[in-house]
Structure formats: structure tokens, C-alpha cells
């Protein structure tokens, strides 16, 4: 008798029903997905240790002992340092003038509040470790490292019966983490929102599945439908990591303007741009990204200088809720988001679509 295709090493590892991970910054979304039989990982990279502890408690009160995960962004490299004043002073006139030109051309207002420059020191090893300490103290069931290698905390996590997954954009990163003993690999393709590697999801998933042995590989990047889930399983994945999909769901705390933008967007409406931060990241196209792609645009500045330039535009567009200016990280599958549904419904739709897709290929499933 054929096996249930949605029963995978990942679902067995966590004792969950569906091999679907919702990556979200919204606790309500996480709780809805977990209680519907999926798995959720809450992005807490920007939170203080106290905030993380509070969020963990909040989630635990609502999921009746089910497992959940927390994602942190462990740095993989850090510059030798510079002060904020030095950085601001070094922004060249050419780029300053271009930013001002965009502001005038699109009637970008001034931000309502001062830009939170206190955060601009960057997130370093100290904060990452303090955040990790909370996860270890709280024995969070699963730690996901959204960028850097989590190898150095594996022993401490495993002593506490915690799982550690690493998100990678290249096979060699996966190989290194597998050798270290991570419990799962999230193979993230170029289609993804935010920071991505250069390899597409369809190539990186089977490449990493081929070297992962029994360690579950989770496909990430552009996964937005049940067809994507079915395809990911066929590529060798044991589950999918989905982010953009949940931004426009009913429980999501994302601004309604952005939800509408996501629902209206096609798969061509994202930009893989350095113009926001100086590092490539995939976001919804907006005047800021469009202008910096024009031939007359000056070179994009490195991080954090470009972010210092874009911060005023970003904050002003959010403060004044200007739909024509706002942007958000979004993956290439954004075009498949066509309505605002409850998270539970999104999860069940994914499952039904995946099963229908697989049955379309192999016939009726058990």
C-alpha cells in the first residue's frame, strides 16, 4: 500500500500532521498554523531576550504542548567596525542627491518620527548569544538559524532535547552543517523573500537532498501553493518553509495596505535589489527600487550606508501609509496569493492542492 506522501521524516521528527513550516513574525499566525496541524517558526531576530521569552510564553499558552520553533539570524561575518557618525559622514553627495531626487519626484513626506538610529549599531555576536541563551533556557523545541551556522550551539541544544535547523543557500554550507550534526537543513532558493542565495529552489533542493542522508531537507523559496509542496516532496524535501504566503492571511499583523499590495501583485512584481540595504534582498517593487535600477542611478552603497539612505524613505512611507511607496519582503510566488484567508484555511488548501497534484501524477492515494 502506498504511503501517505505528506508523512515525512520531518513530520515524524516533530509529531505533526503536515510537512509545512510557516515562517512568520506574527505570533497569531504561528499559533493558528500550529493548532491546524502545521509547524511554525517565529522570526525573533530583532527582538530583545526579554521579548523573546515573553513571546515563547505567549505561544506556549495557546498550543497545548505542540512543538514550535524560533528563528534567529546568527551573523556569519562582521566588519571590523565603524561608528554611526563616521558612517553617516561617509555617504557620498552623489547618492544623497539621488535619494533627494526620489523624494521630490514621488512627493515622499518626512517621517513622522525620528528614525530609530539606536538600532544602527548592527546586530552582533553579543545579541545573538543573549537571544540563544533564552532559547536554550526555555528549551524551545526547534531553533532555526536563518543565516549563520548554528554548529557551535548544537551540543548545548541537543543536551536539552532541542532540534537545530540551519537555513542555507549553497550546498557547501549544507555539507558543513550536516557534518556538524544539525537536525535539519532548510534549502533556500533564489525565489525566496529577503536574503537568498543565487541558486534557484528547483536546483538547490535536490542538490542538498542528495547529500543529506536521513537528515530532513526543507524546501524554501517561492513555495506558495500545494503544487509547490508536491514538487518539493518529489525533489527530495521532507517539508516546505513558507513565508510570504502568511503575510496576507487574516491573522497577520502586516499593514492592510501591504496585504492589498501582496494580493494584487503578480510573480513579476518583486525586485531582487540592493537598493534598500546594500545587500541583495527580494522585496515588492516600489519607486525606491525602480529608481535605483535605472541607468542614471549612482552605484548602490554598501551596507549600512545604503540603509542609512533608504531609511527615511521606508519610514516615511510606513508612517504615512503611502500605498504607492510602501514595500515589504516578498518571494516570487507572491502572485499566487489572491485573497486574504485564515491561516488554517491556507494550510488546508496547501494540503488539498498537494494531494490533488500527486494524485494527478500517480493516481488515487491512500
Amino acid at each position, binding site marked *: 500500500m502506498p504511503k501517505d506522501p505528506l508523512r515525512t521524516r520531518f513530520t515524524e521528527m516533530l509529531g505533526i500532521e503536515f510537512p509545512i513550516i510557516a515562517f512568520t513574525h506574527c505570533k497569531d499566525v504561528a499559533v493558528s498554523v500550529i493548532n491546524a496541524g502545521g509547524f511554525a517558526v517565529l522570526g525573533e531576530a530583532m527582538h530583545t531576550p526579554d521579548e523573546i521569552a515573553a513571546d515563547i510564553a505567549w505561544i506556549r499558552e495557546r498550543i497545548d504542548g505542540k512543538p514550535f520553533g524560533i528563528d534567529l539570524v546568527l551573523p556569519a561575518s562582521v566588519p571590523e*567596525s565603524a561608528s554611526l557618525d563616521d558612517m553617516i559622514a561617509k555617504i557620498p553627495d552623489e547618492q544623497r542627491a539621488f535619494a533627494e531626487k526620489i523624494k521630490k519626484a514621488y512627493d515622499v513626506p518626512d517621517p513622522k518620527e525620528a528614525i530609530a538610529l539606536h538600532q544602527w549599531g548592527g546586530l552582533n555576536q553579543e545579541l545573538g548569544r543573549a537571544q540563544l541563551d533564552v532559547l536554550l533556557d526555555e528549551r524551545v523545541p526547534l531553533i532555526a538559524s536563518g543565516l549563520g551556522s548554528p554548529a557551535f550551539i548544537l551540543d548545548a541544544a541537543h543536551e536539552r532535547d532541542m532540534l537545530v535547523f540551519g537555513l542555507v543557500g549553497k550546498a557547501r554550507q549544507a555539507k558543513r552543517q550536516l557534518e556538524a550534526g544539525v537536525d535539519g537543513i532548510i534549502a533556500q532558493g533564489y525565489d525566496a523573500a529577503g536574503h537568498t542565495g543565487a541558486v534557484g529552489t528547483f536546483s538547490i533542493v535536490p542538490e542538498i537532498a542528495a547529500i543529506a542522508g536521513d537528515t530532513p531537507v526543507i524546501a524554501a523559496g517561492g513555495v506558495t501553493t500545494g503544487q509547490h509542496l508536491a514538487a518539493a516532496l518529489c525533489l527530495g524535501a521532507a517539508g516546505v518553509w513558507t513565508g510570504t504566503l502568511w503575510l496576507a492571511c487574516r491573522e497577520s499583523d502586516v499593514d492592510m495596505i501591504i496585504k492589498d499590495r501582496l494580493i494584487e501583485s503578480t510573480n513579476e512584481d518583486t525586485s531582487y535589489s540592493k537598493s534598500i540595504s546594500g545587500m541583495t534582498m527580494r522585496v515588492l517593487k516600489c519607486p525606491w527600487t525602480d529608481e535605483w535600477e535605472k541607468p542614471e542611478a549612482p552605484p548602490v552603497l554598501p551596507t*549600512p550606508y545604503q540603509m542609512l539612505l533608504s531609511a527615511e524613505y521606508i519610514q516615511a512611507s510606513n508612517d504615512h501609509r503611502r500605498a504607492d511607496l510602501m514595500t515589504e519582503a516578498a518571494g516570487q510566488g507572491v502572485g499566487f496569493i489572491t485573497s486574504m484567508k485564515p491561516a488554517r484555511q491556507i494550510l488546508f488548501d496547501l494540503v488539498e492542492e498537494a494531494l490533488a497534484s500527486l494524485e494527478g501524477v500517480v493516481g488515487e492515494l491512500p
Partner: protein
Amino acid sequence: MATKTTPGDAFAGATRPTVAGFDAAKAGRRAECDGGRMIPGTKYAGREEFSGTLTGEYVDHGDPPWRWYRLCELTQKPENYEGDAVWCESGNLFVVDEDAG
């Protein structure tokens, strides 16, 4: 063998123990770093790739030790990256000849 060399400005604000050392076996080796970090002021992260030569200097941050190596003489770095060196987390650092294939 650990020495008392200065960890560098990247660790200047560290409140946890930082132990600086020198790994002679790594000194002078060419390496690539699949780097990146949070983008300051945002909830997003970004990837940054570097290639260069390891000085052999390292810093172990906290307990359990989180090891960082100093990569200098950068032959590849993000466009307009102004630094001449970068600290790379050991799990994301690939010594070119050791890690080939």
C-alpha cells in the same frame, strides 16, 4: 594556542569572555567566507561573500566558544565594501584548498 592579542574592534562591546588566539595552520591560507548578518535597522538579513587570506588570528566568543577568524587581503568583497578585512564565523569559512570539492 591562545595568545593575548587584541580581538579587534568587532568585539569591542563584548560582555562575554573573548579569547583571542592564533592558529598557525590557518595563517596565510586562502579562504572564502559565505558571510552576512542582520541588516541594521531592519528585520531582514543579507548575505555577503568574501575571499581573502586568513591572518591566523581568531577570537572565541562566549561559552561554548563561537569562533571567528580574521580574513584580510580581500580579493572578493561586496561592492564598495570599505574594509580591508572581515571577521568570519568558522562555520561559514571555507579554506579554499581544504574544502574544495
